[in-house]
């Protein structure tokens, strides 16, 4: 069993619109349960017409994806939890 403490939150460095996919018709960058490598893109944030790719801070497994695709998120909001 995983304890609360081994879940690493990935927070938004900037406020913006949260996108799980690179384009509407394409598959999501990551799904829950998928393992990811450090530096792998987790999502796209759109702020003032500028797109930022948010990368995984370390190797792990996606335990939780918190915001809905296309929703507006605030700076420092938790977007993902990674199991390491």
């Amino acid at each position: 069993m995983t304890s609360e403490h081994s879940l690493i939150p990935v927070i938004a460095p900037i406020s913006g619109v949260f996108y799980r996919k690179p384009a509407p018709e394409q598959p999501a960058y990551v799904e829950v349960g998928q393992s990811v490598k450090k530096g792998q893109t987790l999502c796209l944030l759109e702020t003032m017409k500028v797109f930022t790719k948010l990368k995984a801070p370390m190797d792990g497994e996606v335990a939780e994806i918190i915001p809905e695709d296309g929703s507006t998120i605030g700076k420092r909001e938790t977007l993902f939890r990674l199991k390491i």
Partner: protein
Amino acid sequence: MNLSKVLIANRGEIALRIIRSLKETGLCAAAIYSEADQSCVHVQMADESYEIGAAAASKSYLSMTRIVDLAKKIKADAIHPGYGFLAENAEFASLCEGAGLVFIGPTPDNMRLAGDKLAARMTVEKLGVPVVPGSDHALLTLEEAKEVARQITYPLMLKASAGGGGRGIRVLSDESVLEEEFASAAAEARAAFGDPTLYLEKLIQRPRHIEVQILGDGQGDAIHLLERNCSVQRRHQKLIEEAPSPALSDSVRKRIHAAALSVAKGIHYRNAGTIEFLVDENDNFYFMELNARIQVEHPVTEMITGVDLVNAQISIASGQGIGVIQHEISQWGHAIECRINAEDPDMEFVPSPGKVEDYWAPGGFGVRFDTHLYPGYEIPIYYDSLLGKLIAWGRTRERALRTMGRALQELSIEPIKTTRPFLYEVIRHKEFIEGTYGLDFVEKMLETRSAEAE
């Protein structure tokens, strides 16, 4: 046609700019706003305001049918698109005109020509205006591109015909790069602009970006309102513009004006527009593109000519003609514009939205600040980062620069990170002061900066 009510299909500082001109002309100004813009100042300042849709621009400021339907419903007789959003959308202009609304801007044909870079290049060349040496037709295969490239000689730029504003450009140092890039450039152009057509142009070394303001009546008459130098750019985004251009001889200046005028007349250009040129180190100039809209940087031209360009747009659209003759256009003094963007220059210009807690707008002699900011304004995440345009006028360039420096120091938009400190650094930079700067200026400055930081 006499206009009485104009719907402004835009937001922010340009919506305000247009409202001001409409009020001075005695017309009713109708504003639209998205859910995210209820507290935007253009909503308060217009005579009438209507919510148009959700925060995302695609559901509000870009919703063509909603905007046209609203204009009909509120009995507006014209639409001003501002810049950005639908300003250069020929389909929108046609839709307006089909619905019996005056589109305050170029004709749909003017816009289609401006949007098709290769067609614009060929049209302009026929008018006797120099274009950057390059291909005179669409390049369909790599073999064809290679042959054209050998004739023009490297280094070259591979461009998308439907691109523009610096998007989709690849620099080719030699044939191997062309071989590598051709297929992916075509695929990218198809994905980004819906058209895979490519063409080649000679790479101009260390050019300056010089553009000429024009006003046309759509029947073949046009005037020019001198030039602007917009070479202070970062990633093809202009940061500082000035009029007139420093470091340009009078004879070249006159030839550029004449070239722009022959384009405007030759294509029967209607309303306000800009003809952009690249000028190389030997003062050779080449047509680059036509911008079929009122531009962000139009105030510097207004300051040195005394012509209100938005008023002129309204005059042309209402069938009253340009309202100014060429003979009346002369330069008085010098004007500089700094774009105050919500971007952090210390963090690679990352956007910086948020709430404006502390705000002070600069003023005094020679200062104009076109902005939609006010204390307590919440800068939304949904739209571009332009917060305001700080314009300084002086009898000489040196005085305009001093005024700009003082005004930049006065300006306060806390705690938002803005381009203000970076712009202050630019206007105090030796190369900028000398006026000899080219399009590589900002990049070089940032490189020196990061080298010094290490």
